[in-house]
């Protein structure tokens, strides 16, 4: 349970970080809070030749609102966003998700973008980003690009991040007044990985339900505004359309059942918040 050896760079500028990452090819990794990466290093599931520590780059430590979009830089710790004064007004879904997101002790160090980069299929931040229709800004030495969250997550801990690229920021759409948001989760212990987590948005376009912990990545489904007695059929279809995993924590059947029940509760709560 000790990491294999690696070179370490704590750059003073973003250019320096990106150059080092480019030169390292696929063997370089960014480290920010380390709460997802260090367990991988300890278990030697990750064996990078170089770690680039970005926590001293002040330019990445920003939470900015511009128009309808809230940008969270790669250096923002989860606890910093949790304590952000506008969180419950502008990102109510995240305010509801935070109590489920790891523990106080890991949120104090872990970053928002780090969790997105790690792309665990049961993680709350990727789920919230996908459900809200957010985006990810990627940057390499040569180019910048912005991809939708839905395109960014491509599989089990797999993302669209290319060699030499890092996440510079993630973007959440700001909550619109009159929309409803809800978040529910079932896990073995509060703060552990979710067996199933659901996030829902109810607005004038209808309902969006995001589901984590079931398929190999967070999945989102758009639904028309439904009457209460129509939820069950829609959720049953969704449950069967997901490629439910079976593992030591839960059977695929149990996960589908959680999608039906937790999904219904989450959609109802979001609809109620809207009303």
């Amino acid at each position, binding site marked *: *349970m*000790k*990491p*294999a*050896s*690696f*070179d*370490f*760079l*704590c*750059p*003073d500028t973003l250019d320096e970080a990106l150059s*080092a990452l480019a030169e390292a090819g696929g063997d370089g990794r960014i*480290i920010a809070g*380390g*709460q997802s990466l*260090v*367990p991988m*290093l*300890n*278990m030697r599931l990750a064996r990078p*030749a*170089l*770690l680039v*520590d970005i*926590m001293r780059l002040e330019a990445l430590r920003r939470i900015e609102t511009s128009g309808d979009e809230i940008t969270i830089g790669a250096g923002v710790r989860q*606890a910093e966003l949790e304590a952000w004064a506008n969180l419950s007004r502008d990102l109510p879904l995240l305010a509801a998700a935070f*109590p489920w997101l790891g*523990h*106080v*002790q*890991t949120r*104090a*160090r872990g970053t928002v973008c780090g969790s997105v980069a790690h792309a665990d299929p049961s993680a709350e931040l990727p789920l919230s980003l996908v459900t809200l229709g957010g985006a990810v800004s990627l940057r390499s030495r040569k180019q910048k690009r912005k991809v939708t969250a839905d395109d960014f997550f491509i599989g089990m801990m797999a993302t669209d991040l290319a060699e030499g690229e890092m996440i510079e920021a993630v973007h959440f759409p700001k909550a619109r007044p009159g929309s409803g948001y809800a978040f529910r989760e079932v896990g073995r*212990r*509060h*703060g*552990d990985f979710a067996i199933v987590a659901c996030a829902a948005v109810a607005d004038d376009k209808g309902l969006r339900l995001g589901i984590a912990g079931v398929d190999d990545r967070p999945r989102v489904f758009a639904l028309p505004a439904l009457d209460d007695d129509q939820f069950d059929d829609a959720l049953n279809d969704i449950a069967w359309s997901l490629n439910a995993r079976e593992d030591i924590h839960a059977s695929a059947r149990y996960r589908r059942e959680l999608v039906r029940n937790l999904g219904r509760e989450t959609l109802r709560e979001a609809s109620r918040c809207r009303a």
Partner: protein
Amino acid sequence: MPRMNAAQRHGVEFTLNGRKVRAEAENRMLLSDLLRHEIGLTGTHVGCEHGVCGACTVQIDGKPARACLTLAQQVRGSDVRTVEALAPGPAELSPLQAAFRRHHGLQCGFCTPGILMSLDALLRERPEAGREDIREHLSGHLCRCTGYATIVEAALAAAEEQWKEETPNA
């Protein structure tokens, strides 16, 4: 700062329990191992080494954090506190530690240093913390002896004591 080679040890300076320290560590060394093996402070315990059990919890810049999920090089310039910083003297306990003893908040004691550091951080930041806050902080720790009830009671008693001290006329 130049790239630090994997094969060598590199200096890391930080504040530990109120004193400036400089230690040598390979890049791959965890903070938990730096504290225990290089500096000799074995109060920080190591359980699972992947962030689940909470035994290695210390305070970094006032916030509880897993020493096993922190590389030694990441605390450069930070303020680190370990369980050794809690007691005011060799024969004394802090109010929180004393409450743990009074309320049987520990049996084998393996998880205790981590729990103390989490609860100490909570009570410093929010002396008015109640049962729910305490349980929320405890959810990041595993204790296989006590069943947690006595730990919650100890923390509540310490919180009350601290509150009385800070507001003597209340």
